[in-house]
């Protein structure tokens, strides 16, 4: 690992002052330390945030929750308010990584884990994300894990987070701070599509620190579910995952939230499917039509074409379970 300076600020202002070029904030380290060891990330300074008072889940007016950026993934999944009001979020977190990693990883770090694939890790291969302009060896390569939505000719890597898929469905907001002030970024706008700059993965400025994630009140989320399909029963990235919340009255869909993981270059809110569903019948046929609408723009590779059928089936099964 390339040598770096290490600082551990005792308050948020001190952390913000330390931000700058070649500086990385450190939470649990589960992604960043790995990438540093692989020589992909090489900051000159690490600012350890784990001494900051950002590790609480607090009530918001109206029944929402404010989750501190340093809340560990395991603590988020175990929180009784999260489990009661947003079961999809607790389930998504528990579907990700391993117990050891969830005990280490923070909410802010989960948001900032790199969108990545094996070609990104393997320095013998071209990767526009690792080395802008060098090409993408995933195209025409082994693409079983790659994205079919939101892809570009520069990058087809999948955003790997489960937590973020649930946050996308829940209309979460990311609170960020810098010495210039505080702003709130809707989760939908936080992660960026690769386009021709796949090395830029989110809307954070260089000097900004994530301080919290806010969940607005969402009665529909009480009936919600996260379903993850993967190559083994546990501790694997998603081939396809679905975060869904559904409200049905007299056989008609009155409210729905749908987001997809494992198939897209960012946590994918399925707005098109939601439009088809709302006001329509809560039937398997209607669920299938909604899935088809969302997946119509899919751009597949030979190795990941199966994801379109798998995503359709998983969307239908998840909605059927909630109806």
């Amino acid at each position, binding site marked *: 690992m390339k040598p770096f300076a*290490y600082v551990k600020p005792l308050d948020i202002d001190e952390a913000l002052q330390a931000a700058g070029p070649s500086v990385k904030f450190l939470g649990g380290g589960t992604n960043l330390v*790995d990438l540093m*060891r692989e020589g992909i990330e090489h900051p000159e300074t690490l600012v*350890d945030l784990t001494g900051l008072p950002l590790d609480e889940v607090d009530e918001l007016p109206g029944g929402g929750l404010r989750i501190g950026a340093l809340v560990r993934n395991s603590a988020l999944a175990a929180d009784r308010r999260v*489990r009661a009001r947003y079961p999809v979020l607790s*389930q998504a977190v528990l579907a990700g990584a391993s*117990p050891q*990693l969830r005990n280490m990883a923070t909410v802010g770090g989960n948001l900032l884990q790199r969108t990545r694939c094996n070609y990104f890790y393997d320095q013998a291969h071209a990767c526009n994300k690792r080395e802008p302009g060098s090409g993408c060896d995933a195209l025409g390569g082994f693409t079983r894990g790659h994205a079919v939505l939101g892809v570009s000719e520069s990058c087809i890597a999948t955003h790997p987070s489960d937590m973020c898929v649930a946050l996308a469905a829940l209309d979460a907001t990311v609170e960020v701070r810098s010495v210039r002030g505080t702003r709130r970024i809707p989760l939908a706008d936080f992660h960026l599509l690769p386009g021709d700059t796949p090395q830029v993965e989110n809307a954070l400025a260089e000097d900004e620190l994530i301080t919290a994630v806010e969940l607005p009140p969402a009665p529909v989320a009480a009936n919600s579910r996260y379903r993850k399909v993967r190559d083994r029963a*546990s501790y694997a990235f998603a081939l396809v995952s679905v975060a869904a919340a559904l409200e049905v009255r007299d056989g008609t869909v009155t409210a729905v939230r749908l987001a997809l993981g494992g198939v897209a270059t960012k946590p994918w809110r399925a707005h098109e499917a939601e439009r088809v569903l709302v006001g329509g019948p809560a039937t398997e046929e209607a669920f299938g039509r909604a899935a088809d609408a969302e997946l119509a723009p899919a751009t597949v590779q030979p190795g990941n074409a199966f994801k379109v059928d798998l995503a359709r089936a998983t969307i239908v099964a998840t909605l059927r379970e909630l109806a």
Partner: protein
Amino acid sequence: MTELRMRVNGVTRTLDIEPWVSLLDALRDHLGLTGPKKGCDQGACGACTVLADGVRINACLALAVQYADKEITTIEGIAKGEDGTHPMQEAFVRHDGFQCGYCTSGQICSAVAMLTEHAAGMPSAVTPTTDRIELTDDEIRERMSGNLCRCGAYNGILDAIKDVAAQEAP
């Protein structure tokens, strides 16, 4: 160099290390505690599992400097008495919970902390919304999925953990 004081297995140790030294390397190479193993060195296998304030973590992805104020427990310190063994260690022997033994120290540390998590009401992907969670085979397998065993001693590991869980049950 950073001078670091860390409680390891009940003893305060002083370390002179660079900030890029992992907790795993600090334990193995600086303190001579070779129980925690380096399997993948990327958080995928769990052979390096140790406890920080009783919570299981992957020591390979932890920078030692981040854990200066924590109480670290490795397999060498998991037993209560000086020369004793932990009930989980005895159960692994009784049920053949290993073959080559490389993953075993991580498996045992992980299993001990897993039972603590379960007792504290931590949900899992198998039964995320239930309040009283029975430690079924599925439940234990899910909660131990962060520890791989390439010899495939999983059935013995499962039996060992069930044995200890039954002893600890109120």
